[in-house]
């Protein structure tokens, strides 16, 4: 102890200026002061200049009447709604396209990534070509490809393609029948929830039983029967309350039914295809990162190749895959702001319109930055939880 104390005292010998601890403290304080000072200076300057230029500022404008319409409104919105609500509509549109894109990109990415490792020459080459094409094209071009190259050349509403189940496809989008839930349909929803809960319970019990006795139970088919069967039963019992609103031809467009607009479709497809290429590479790297011995050991235990992938390789690969996957999810969310090029009313588009209609540039940009920041932080937080659950638990 004594010798350690002497050692710790030693550096402070000599002048104050040469003490590394005091020096370190001094420079850290200096950096903090300079940082906060410059931020304060910029903010103060902006406020001063806004006042000098007679530009109204503050966030009061969010309560004003918007006066413009938005094409895709997931929540109730009319031109009488407020600017604040218009921005919320945009935010929800961004979340919708981001979530849908993330799910689809993950599925495509895993399929392509595993496909690149396939023994089958054709599958492997097709997957390689996919990755190399989409990875090397800027996302904006992929969006334009879908918007101008694929969806815009579809026929006009009068000559729509008729698809099965009363759906239509034309240059104004994809139309399909909308479910109209009649009286007593809440029973179906309840049945669905009960079904999912029971399926989860069955899966848990089956796993415990397998752990204890080694006996297997057909979990998949039982769960499927519960999740599909129970609502179906409820549907029959409540007297068939479901009807459909079919899209019909009117003067200009098809009316009725549910319309998925080409702006959403092209953005969603482009983001999914583009990000999937990166996810495929991450998945491939993850699988390659699992040592070959693991596969061989599993095979030696008598597992089939499908089970090896599902039970041994993928769980271990996930540990490698999830951290870079998070970055791809964040990229996809932020790339969704490219929607502005094709007129999908995402956060950037609606907040940008509000910005222009009110002239509140500083506030508008601030709102957009904070909204994207929060979206990204939430995505990261969720993925960190997933990562923590997947991480190797050391015993």
């Amino acid at each position, binding site marked *: 102890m004594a010798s350690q104390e002497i050692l710790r005292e030693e550096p402070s010998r000599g002048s104050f200026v040469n003490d590394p601890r005091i020096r370190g403290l001094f420079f850290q304080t200096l950096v903090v002061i300079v940082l906060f000072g410059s931020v304060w200076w*910029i*903010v103060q*300057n*902006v406020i*001063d*200049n*806004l006042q*000098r*230029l*007679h*530009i*109204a500022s503050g966030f009061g404008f969010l309560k004003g009447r918007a*006066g*413009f*319409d*938005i*094409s895709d409104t997931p929540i109730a919105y*009319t*031109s009488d709604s407020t600017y604040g609500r218009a921005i919320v509509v945009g935010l929800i549109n961004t979340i919708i396209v981001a979530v849908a894109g993330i799910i689809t990109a993950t599925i495509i990415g895993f399929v392509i990534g595993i496909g690149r490792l396939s023994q089958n020459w054709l599958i492997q080459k097709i997957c390689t070509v996919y990755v190399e094409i989409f990875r090397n094209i800027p996302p904006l071009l992929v969006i334009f490809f879908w918007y*101008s190259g694929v969806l*815009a050349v579809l026929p*006009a509403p009068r000559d729509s393609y008729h698809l099965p189940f009363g759906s239509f496809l034309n*240059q*104004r989008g994809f139309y399909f029948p909308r479910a109209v839930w009649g009286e007593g349909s809440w029973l179906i929803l309840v049945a669905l929830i009960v079904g999912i809960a029971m399926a989860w319970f069955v899966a848990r019990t089956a796993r415990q039983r397998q752990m204890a006795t080694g006996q297997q139970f057909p979990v998949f088919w039982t769960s499927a029967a519960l999740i599909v069967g129970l609502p179906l039963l409820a549907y029959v019992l409540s007297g068939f309350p479901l009807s459909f609103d079919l899209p019909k031809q*009117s*003067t*200009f*467009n098809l*009316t009725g039914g549910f319309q998925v607009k*080409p*702006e959403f479709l092209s953005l969603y497809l482009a983001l999914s295809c583009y990000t999937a290429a990166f996810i495929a590479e991450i998945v491939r790297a993850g699988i390659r990162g699992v040592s070959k011995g693991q596969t061989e050991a599993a095979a030696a235990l008598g597992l089939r190749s499908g089970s090896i992938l599902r039970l041994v390789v993928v769980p271990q690969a996930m540990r490698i895959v999830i951290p870079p996957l998070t970055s791809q999810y964040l990229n996809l969310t932020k790339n969704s*702001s*490219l929607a*502005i*090029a*094709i*007129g999908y*009313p995402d956060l*950037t*588009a609606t907040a*940008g*319109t509000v*910005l*222009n*209609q*009110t*002239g509140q*540039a*500083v506030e*508008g*940009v601030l709102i*957009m930055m904070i909204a994207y920041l929060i979206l990204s932080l939430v995505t990261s937080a969720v993925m960190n939880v997933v990562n923590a659950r997947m991480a190797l638990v050391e015993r």
Partner: protein
Amino acid sequence: MKHIAIGILGAATLGLMASAASAGTLDTVKAKGFIQCGVSTGLAGFSAPDDKGDWQGIDADFCRAVAAAVFGDGTKVKFTPLSAKERFTALQSGEVDILSRNTTWTINRDTALGLNFIGVTYYDGQGFMINAKKLPGVNSALQLSGAAVCVQSGTTTELNLADYFKANKMEYNPVVFEKLEEVNAAYDAGRCDVYTTDQSGLYGIRLTLGSPADHVVLPEIISKEPLGPAVRQGDDQWYHIVKWTYFALLDAEELGITKANVDEMKNSASPEIKRVLGQEADTKIGTDLGVSNDWVVNIVKATGNYGEMFDRNVGSGSPLKIARGINALWTKGGLQYAPPIR
């Protein structure tokens, strides 16, 4: 994305260039030797680059007229193409000295946005255009219920459209783009049934479509759209120079001073013409404004009077062939009226 960049740039310049902006715009402009003029990204007749890359149109010419007043040389202008969304931030932040970009004068823009509109260089109104070949039965905007309508975002057009359909209890699907070219492409491709913007713009856009003859502009005018140049608030001298350039263009037309006869007119017997052209002895009209005394001569030599500007860019001398209508001088039954230069 670009408008975010401009927004941040705007915030940054507002923050950092306080001293530069507080010097008078006239001094700043004289120091750099040219006027930075904010124009549209391309609207035939108002501001659009020709095949040589020179900006043409009534809005572009207006900036040349101001340059002629300030420098005696109408070519000392640099043009910045701005989207509807970028335009106000660009002017507020000092990126451009004049916004001459088919912009509608409204009270909100004059007050909350910190701009000063100097006058109305073109009286316009919002209209609708449809493809008559695809929609043969439609001859009034009141038949448009249920249509998909293409419109540019961040414009008064977008707001008037919402108001008009609401007032007439009609429904529509807005198809909204940020850039004019994107709206044009979407309309041409059939993404929407109707194109709405200022009527002058519709005539210009029609010329650029695949088959112009198929498209008709519906008779309804649903709004007042007084288009004019704007400057920043808080610089009265610059505001007056730009405003009186506009008045000088009108007064020159009223007095019959044209690009061709301006030099002869200097020796005119009329005291009014001599006064306007700065030929009065010991005149201080120009220098009081902050420019030279022959500023009106320079303006007319550079761009011609208002009537010449109109005819060349949007009127009979242009492909648009828009009639003078309410844009005629007050002496000919129009609305263009300027206070006297004295």
